[in-house]
């Protein structure tokens, strides 16, 4: 599973993109974030406040209960500020 990070999530985690293989019990986007938080202090800090973490799966916005499949492209990012 490919994970992309943008803006200050990218900066805090320290990478723009990584391949991860979460354990089988990680079934949803919410599960994935919980699992990522356990990967170290940078992840824990970046993902501490879920109210400011937006999730897209395969380039569409999804909620925290969205089911995940192995080949998914998951993106985590703060609220957008374009325009």
């Amino acid at each position, binding site marked *: 599973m490919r994970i992309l990070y*943008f803006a200050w999530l990218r900066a805090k985690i320290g990478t723009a993109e990584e391949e991860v293989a979460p354990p089988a019990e990680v079934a949803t986007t919410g599960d994935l974030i919980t699992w990522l938080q356990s990967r170290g202090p940078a992840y824990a800090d970046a993902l501490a406040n879920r109210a400011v973490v937006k999730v897209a799966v395969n*380039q*569409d916005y999804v909620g925290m209960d969205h089911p995940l499949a192995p080949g998914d492209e998951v993106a985590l990012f*703060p609220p*957008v500020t*374009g325009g």
Partner: protein
Amino acid sequence: MAIRVQAEDFDVGAELAALSDGNPSIGGVASFVGLVRDMSKGDGAGGDAVSALTLEHYPGMTERQLAAIEAEVRARWPLDAVLIIHRHGRLLPGDRIVLAACASAHRAAAFEACWFLMDWLKTKAPFWKQEETPDGARWVEAKEEDEHAADRWRQQAP
């Protein structure tokens, strides 16, 4: 499909002319050009000086979401043409960031659709701004007023 995500600047006059060119049933073109401000939108009295703005985006998702929103405005309003150009990369105060334009036989449709596009771009398009200020680089925070502006369109039938 009139959607472009690019680092380069754009020529507003040429873009707007091209939008209506060859279609004399268009009565008007409403547009909005967003510019880099030299001040951050601080809470309270003013903000900090901004010497540059860098726009990060999510290549692929940006184009996908812009195409979806173009389809939505075309479904909601009677439009003859729609154009969205959004830049990314490092920009200076006064630089153009975005152009949204809607052409229609009907003035109200053109205004509403263009305004909707801008409210949508502010809240849904995957772009993030980082400002360079005297205190260093700082990610711009999303504004609640932008969410309210975008929510407005959910309640209104066109």
